[in-house]
């Protein structure tokens, strides 16, 4: 394996502890695309929950730690748009006061990719079309679409793997998660999720796909258990290209 075919997986804390099957699917997809996957075991959390709740010194501590752990790999891939945005957009901002850390954060930002972005733009990989795959509707998670401007990539991959993508009225409307927000303002958060799930149901697609574990856990929490199936794109793509 050449250096260029080596990727470090930053699996994210939610996938590691709550949705490990998404991590497994991510590893398989990256291997199918021809990459050697490494998992730096010291990794934990990117620090976003602390950053978002105003606990800046804790966020800085975890950001520096993550920069340290991932900095030596040629490429870093995450199955989460939100955590990718944290590393790409927020780390350089957060570590600005320390010139050395700032430049290391910028270097890491430049080689960090969200999974679908990496598969489409960096690996040039497309899944082999499955014989028949159910229709999906795609939820544009906030940080992925507005901080990383990514939305075409997951749709391309889903379409290539045989899923028809039925669009919601407002695919980029927040699902109501927002980290600690969902616990501080549970009434509002739940109302937002209910709206999102209703819009997904309107599309008639049996599956709601997203590239963010946080959104998936949130939406599964309020979608009727016997109704809409809510899946990470990695899981869907892995199954379709098996």
């Amino acid at each position: 394996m050449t250096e260029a075919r080596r990727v470090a997986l930053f699996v994210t804390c939610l996938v590691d502890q709550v949705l490990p099957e998404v991590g497994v699917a991510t590893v398989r997809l990256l291997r199918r695309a021809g990459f050697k996957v490494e998992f730096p075991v010291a990794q934990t959390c990117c620090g976003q929950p602390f950053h978002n709740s105003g606990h800046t010194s804790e966020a800085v501590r975890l950001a520096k730690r993550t920069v340290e752990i991932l900095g030596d790999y040629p490429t870093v891939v995450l199955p989460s748009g939100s955590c990718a945005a944290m590393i790409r957009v927020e780390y350089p901002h957060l570590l600005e006061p320390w010139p050395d850390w700032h430049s290391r954060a910028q270097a890491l930002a430049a080689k960090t990719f969200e999974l679908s972005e990496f598969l489409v733009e960096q690996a040039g990989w497309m899944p082999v079309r499955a014989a028949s795959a159910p229709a999906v509707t795609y939820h544009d998670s906030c940080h992925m679409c507005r901080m990383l401007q990514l939305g075409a990539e997951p749709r391309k991959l889903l379409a290539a793997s045989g899923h028809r993508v039925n669009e919601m009225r407002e695919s980029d409307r927040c699902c109501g998660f927002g980290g600690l927000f969902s616990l501080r303002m549970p009434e509002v958060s739940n109302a937002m999720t209910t709206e999102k799930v209703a819009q997904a149901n309107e599309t008639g697609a049996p599956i709601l796909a997203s590239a963010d574990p946080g959104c998936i856990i949130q939406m599964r929490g309020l979608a009727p258990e016997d109704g809409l199936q809510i899946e990470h794109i990695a899981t869907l793509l892995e199954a379709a290209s098996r």
Partner: protein
Amino acid sequence: MTATFPQFRQQARIAIEDIRLQGALDTATGNLLGARIQALAELPDSEKLRDHLKSIRSSTLANLVRYLEIFERNAVAAGVHIHWASTGGDARKIVIDIAEQHGVTLATKSKSMTTEEIHLNDALAAVGAEAVETDLGEWIIQLAQEPPFHIIGPAIHKTREQVAELISEASGRSLAPDDIAMLTAEARRVLREKFLAAGMGISGGNIAVAETGSVVLVTNEGNGRLVTSAPPVHVAVIGIEKVVPTWDDAAAWLALLARSATGQPLSVYTSIISGPARNEDPDGPREVHVVFLDNGRSRQIGGEYEEVLQCIRCGACLNVCPVYREAGGHAYGSPYNGPIGSVITPLYSGLRKYEALPHACSLCQACKDICPVRIDLPRMLLALRETEVREGVIPWPERKVEEAAAVVLAHERLLRFVTWIFRRLQGVFLRDGRLQLPLWLDPTLGRRMPGLAQRSFRTMWQAGELESKE
């Protein structure tokens, strides 16, 4: 007014449970968003215009005192009286003094968020001067004795039935909710009497143009013209940040204001007030006063929140905000609601009193995207949250939990140990792989939350289960 966590949540709950309100809110915000997109598409290059307006706003703020002085010089030359108010109290006193000098018992008002900010109507009532709102939406909420629900649409949460009831009560006639023409005719009749009888007209000002000392007022109902021209005295209360150097600058502002707000190329009326009536003018006010309000604005200059002063008050951030679209405007406890209100209310009126507002946000970034001058509101909400942590507004136990969590996450082996304990303990609450907490213990109020997976990804990886078969 305040917005503590319990207050915000209580008001939001009321709005969320009100099905009619939710319907009205969804329709109004959805329509405004759709109209905005179409209106911006009509411009040759709306993105460039947004950048241009932003640079006008930021360069003006960098020389704010200079442009306010130019405005003052030119306005005074045109016969306008200029007043400077450091606080809301100062501004109220200035307006009350003018009202008392002229023996005013009735004042008409055109819609003004600045006078909402300083609670001018109550202050006038206390000295025996009735202030009647003449913008239809603002009048409706005045009749309902409510604060505005939306920066540009104060009554968007009211259904036609509710409006018919309020106008019927005000006019003493029973009006049918379906007869919109009759409702507006009745509003017109009642308000026309007020316009003619008023001793003073009070307005805000959308833009203050320094090069001619002029106040620009945009309205859709023409009430602004009657307020500023029929009574003998006109008082405009304007935030100091609303000044621009030239008419070219004002033109860029106007090109984006109505488009961003309602999707109109221009509002129906754009009034330009450049001094009192000249001798040869058959009508118009004999006296014009401009009250420039600081009230916490100038102390933002040079600080991390300066950008917020660039706001042109279009309300687009409210329409796109997923929190506002569920919680509604009253939860914010402030005339300024939605994302922009969540930033400026704590800045102008105190973070402790409005502790919940920086958290009334999922950080979805939609407000930053839609803002015509690209104000980074999410960044400022984060900064306010940071201040709350630093100043102890966030309660001690929560800070300690966060600190402890960060310690655990900073040590991988500790993380494994803590999650090992959690996996042993969560069994008590797990049913079919979902945590089932008693409702009083459930911070999610009923979402089905998964527990930790039986085995973490790192456990599988380290056990060699994911080794490549290739």
